[in-house]
């Protein structure tokens, strides 16, 4: 791909735009990270282990899932499979970014892969689709800017939660903080009827499969939900009158 406007000034200006767009996510990521630190402390992890968890894995929902299954003494392979199932959406983000960033050098793509998060992905894809004529350098600059406020917040607030952990009173019903966090994450994603059908099918199947040991019902329900969503999408597209 020819990069006609690959001047540093363009990339720098898009880096600043990325910073501006990424900054508000600090408000979501901060409390979420504190919560992980608190719950991990309650599960018996020390500060170093908690920080390592956040730096090595850098994926909130998957970390919560792994933590919860480990406290339930699920087999290690089930912990890994379930948490990776939660993180499958990262493969989708990666796939979706590929047409925009696939031409970058390998070392940059390797870094982008590590920093592919819900927030950085959402920022970047929105901007790339709105301004399809951005140069590759501008896209990279924008991505770097969008991710910069979020990542130190994730690391730092995880540690803050770990240090605060023992001082959070029992009466705060932290057992339910996790379900609320996941519901809050998923609610804004229910954009189309197909997304709603996928969610509905996954809820019904997860309740029916609740007796399946070690949360394997999760994977069954997730696959059913994805198939229902894909089927529904085909159906809605077929029903729409041709342009």
């Amino acid at each position, binding site marked *: 791909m020819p990069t006609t406007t690959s001047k540093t000034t363009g990339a720098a200006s898009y880096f600043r735009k990325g910073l501006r767009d990424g900054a508000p996510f600090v408000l979501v990521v901060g409390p979420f990270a504190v919560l992980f630190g608190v719950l991990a402390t309650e599960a018996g992890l020390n500060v170093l282990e908690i920080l390592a968890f956040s730096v090595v894995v850098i994926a909130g929902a998957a970390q919560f899932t792994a933590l919860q299954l480990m406290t339930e003494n699920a087999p290690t392979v089930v912990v890994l499979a379930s948490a990776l199932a939660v993180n499958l959406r990262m493969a989708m983000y990666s796939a979706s970014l590929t047409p925009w960033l696939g*031409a970058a050098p390998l070392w940059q793509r390797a870094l*982008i892969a590590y920093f592919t998060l819900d927030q950085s992905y959402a920022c970047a894809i929105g901007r790339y689709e709105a301004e399809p004529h951005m140069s590759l350098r501008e896209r990279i600059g924008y991505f770097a800017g969008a991710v910069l406020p979020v990542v130190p917040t994730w690391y730092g607030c995880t540690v803050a939660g770990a240090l605060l952990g023992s001082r959070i009173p029992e009466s705060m019903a932290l*057992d*339910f903080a996790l*379900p609320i966090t*996941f519901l809050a994450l998923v609610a804004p994603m229910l954009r189309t009827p197909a997304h709603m059908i996928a969610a509905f099918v996954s809820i019904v199947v997860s309740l029916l499969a609740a007796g399946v040991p070690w949360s394997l019902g*999760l994977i069954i329900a997730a696959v059913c939900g994805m198939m229902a969503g894909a089927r529904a999408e*085909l159906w809605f597209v077929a029903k729409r009158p041709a342009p």
Partner: protein
Amino acid sequence: MIDKSTLWIVIIGLGLGSYLLRFTFIGLVGDRPMPAWLLRHLRYTAVAVLPALVAPQVVWPQATGGEPDIARMAAAVVTLAVGYRTGNVFAGLFAGAATLTVMLSLAG
């Protein structure tokens, strides 16, 4: 209590696995096109996985010994409704937490 060797196996295994999920497409596929059916299924990953993770805990919470609990169900419904209406993760989180706190204090 979580066994320490299990913990480190999970941290490293989950880190490697998550990185591979993030790297495979952008790193290895590059500019080559992907089959439409695969992308179509991947689009529904998040909305299929996260609700399945939560639903059993909403209906049969561990904290009540598996007894359905009106405060937790109300908090779940409010979180979903506010998150859906506002499109804002933080608004849903806050509304759900507030609902749970108020309902539990009324019950207690």
